[in-house]
């Protein structure tokens, strides 16, 4: 089992290494370097030369990649172009803000998705299933910026229950922040819950149709005991990986949601840095978001391995 975990870990590191190459080469081959795209029309003469000097763009690309990668491993992303600040200082509060948003959405979303998924599977094709599944299709397919806009229009503007635009002063307690983040959290959790509930539903339905459950029914195991002891452990295990992929996929949606609510997280930093053509920050964001994706998947692999007794004894399979 340790070998398996180690193998997954190494694969994750290789993926991150390729990501760093892709972001570096991508920025390199797209027209314009960091200096010309940032300075735009003022990109000539002394200003350009100074900028090139400061970023070290005069050394060959492979040397720049090596020194950049070396610094990144040590946790140093260099300087941003626009703010003249260290990228780490820019990133710190943004990561914290986004974490608050994402973890709130996950804490609400996962249990809710489990409950809804199980309900829809057990009452398959009956009223509860039809209603919940229809709502799920709507909240899953409608883009985040539409559900977020509608939430603002209905809850903040028409009903005036909550503020529509998030204003986050630097030092606030959690309870002061709470009314500000309710709407963005709902917007993110809605789409995530719908996706996961659908997966849980079909996973439970699959297990319910299997031979050992039929056997349990024939043996007369009480219904709820069967559901909790026999169905759920087997149904939820394969769902873990899919849930992880869904959460990772929603990173893109978080970006859009943060823009709609003007929430100062990583997502808005993506837009800001791209609008400002601040390529060093874009590169840093690429690596950070990719590491989040890789670690979520790694954690999901770990969970699956730890919860699945069959995999504990296997050494090499898959």
């Amino acid at each position, binding site marked *: 089992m340790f070998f398996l975990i180690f193998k997954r870990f190494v694969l994750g590191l290789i993926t991150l290494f390729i990501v760093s190459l892709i972001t570096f080469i991508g920025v390199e081959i797209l027209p314009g370097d960091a200096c010309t795209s940032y300075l735009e029309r003022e990109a000539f003469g002394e200003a350009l030369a100074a900028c090139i000097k400061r970023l070290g763009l005069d050394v060959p690309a492979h040397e720049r990649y090596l020194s950049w990668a070396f610094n990144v491993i040590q946790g140093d992303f260099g300087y941003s172009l626009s703010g003249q600040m260290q990228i780490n200082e820019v990133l710190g509060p943004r990561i914290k803000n986004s974490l608050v948003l994402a973890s709130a959405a996950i804490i609400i979303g996962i249990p809710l998705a489990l409950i809804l998924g199980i309900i829809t599977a057990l009452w398959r094709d009956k009223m509860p299933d039809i209603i919940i599944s229809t709502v799920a299709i709507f909240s899953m397919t*409608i883009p985040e*910026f*539409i559900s977020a806009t509608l939430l603002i229009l209905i809850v903040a503007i028409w009903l005036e229950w909550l503020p529509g635009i998030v204003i986050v002063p630097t030092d606030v307690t959690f309870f002061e922040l709470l009314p500000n983040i309710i709407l963005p959290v709902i917007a993110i959790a809605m789409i995530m819950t719908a996706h996961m509930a659908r997966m849980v539903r079909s996973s439970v339905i699959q297990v319910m149709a299997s031979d050992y459950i039929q056997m349990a029914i024939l043996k007369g195991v009480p219904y709820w005991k069967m559901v909790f002891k026999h169905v759920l452990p087997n149904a939820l295990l394969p*769902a873990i990986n*899919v*849930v992880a992929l869904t959460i990772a*996929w929603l990173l893109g949606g978080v*970006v859009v949601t943060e823009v*709609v609510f003007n929430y100062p997280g990583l997502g808005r930093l993506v837009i800001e840095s*791209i609008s400002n053509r601040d390529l060093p920050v874009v590169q840093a964001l690429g690596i950070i978001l990719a590491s989040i994706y890789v670690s979520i998947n790694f954690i999901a692999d770990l969970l699956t391995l730890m919860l699945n007794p069959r995999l504990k004894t296997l050494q090499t399979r898959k």
Partner: protein
Amino acid sequence: MENSKDIFNEKPKSSFAKAFDVISTMASKPSGFIGLAILVFHIILAITSPWFAPYDYKAINPSLMLNAPSSEFWFGTDSLGRDVFTRTILGGRTALTITFFGSIIALLWGGLLGIFCGLVGGRIDDIVMRIVDAFLSIPWILAMLLIVSLLGTTTEVLIPALGFFYGKGIVRVARAATHDVIAKDFIVSAKARGHSNLSIIWNEILPNVRDAILVEGAMRWSWMLLGFSSLSFLGFGVSPPTPDWGLMISNARGLMSFAWWAVIAPIVGLSSLIIGINLTADAFAKALGIDRSTKAPV
């Protein structure tokens, strides 16, 4: 009796008849019927709307700013005095065209590369899949925004860029589907007959994985539409004054406390189209006997 049907002399169905069968199976369920109806409605609307649009979509008229819906302007006017109804019925044309061609590109390169990797296996397969994994772990929005901001928001940039970024997930699906058929006898015998890889892909594998790839492509279409609209919403999609739902929502959003009609109309247009494509893709998968609901949207 059913079983006594003479299966050897039965004529194979033409591909047209097969397509008709699939569509009628899709339409036999309410969700599939609704999805198909919405999709067909949107396609017809996108094709015909320039002929019956009541006003000029880019005519700015300061005296008509933010008029509420009336018999003259059915959906009201926006902050520049443009007719919202005209812009709404025209608003899906760009998105539909770009994402349609984008999905075809995604299907082609993703499907073919996936089949190829599944067939040859070994080191090439390992390397390609690592690269695909790496691309999957970069959020699409960051990569798309970077490309679009550096290369511009023209159609020639958007279609291949979207096609590329939404095709990488198809590589995995096509590869998995190929693995399912690769061990079957007819592939082994084709190899034994000395067919080339290309001929095996075209004649033996493609007909067997086609359904899975097509379903994936239909699903990608709706995600790509979602992605494209998000780009427009963020101001990185089509450029004004082209009417586009994502752009219209983002423009009208700031004033929605007193002009909700300008934001509701494009919201209804975009949501209904995405829901329509999704329901259609789901029904399409069910009609072909493919279960997608346990898959993550990567």
